[in-house]
């Protein structure tokens, strides 16, 4: 996830998390790591601003499971689909009260061709997307 000052909506601090489920189709934060990271964020008056994960075989849209677990209503849920070896899909959503609202994504400071982003202009995205977060 990416933390930022509470209420700022600014993703400032990237915190890669272990997938404790160690699965290609399910992810969950490691419980102990989450508590440690949360306490540190709390001390720094931070909250999660971006929570990201990837879908290895399906589109970059929140699954029913993703929606049911979305417990940080202020966060941007960033989804990366790696189902296609040539084309990576990056989409972002707000999820609150089980309602999914897509928001546009714009890649900045990218090392890829900026015209590679075919749709979803405007909005904010961390400069580095951690593709190592699998499932």
């Amino acid at each position, binding site marked *: *996830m990416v933390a930022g000052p509470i209420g700022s909506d600014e993703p400032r601090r990237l915190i890669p998390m272990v997938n404790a489920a160690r*699965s290609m189709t399910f992810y*969950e934060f490691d419980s102990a790591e989450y508590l440690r990271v949360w306490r540190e964020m709390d001390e720094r008056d931070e909250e999660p601003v971006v929570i990201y994960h990837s879908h290895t075989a399906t589109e970059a849209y929140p699954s029913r499971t993703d929606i049911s677990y979305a417990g*940080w209503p202020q966060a941007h849920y960033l989804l990366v689909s790696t189902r296609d070896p040539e084309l990576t899909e990056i989409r972002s959503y707000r999820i609150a009260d089980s309602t999914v609202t897509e928001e546009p994504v714009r890649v900045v400071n990218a090392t890829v061709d900026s015209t590679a982003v075919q749709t979803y202009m405007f909005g904010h995205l961390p400069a580095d997307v951690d593709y190592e977060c699998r499932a």
Partner: protein
Amino acid sequence: MAIQIRVPTILRSYTGGQKVVEASGETLADVLTDLDSRHPGIRARLVTEDGGLHKFVNVYVNDEDVRFLGALDAKVADGDTVTILPAVAGGAPAVAHPES
């Protein structure tokens, strides 16, 4: 007996916006019942109809996930801190299927 409960943003509508509240009890089950008497409705977000802890929350007593302490039977003592966090998890099927 005072047990400190740290409540995540999503549950603060039950606590009048407070991040930290107090409750008492000797087990987590008792604490949540007491908590609910002071902040009605919060327990239903934490405990399912079957009487188990919701999988959508992580609950800790001090530094330990209560899953390892007997879940709702976890013992709590005066001065302990119970931390509640929304579980961060998700998944997608291994095989693509028509979006429903």
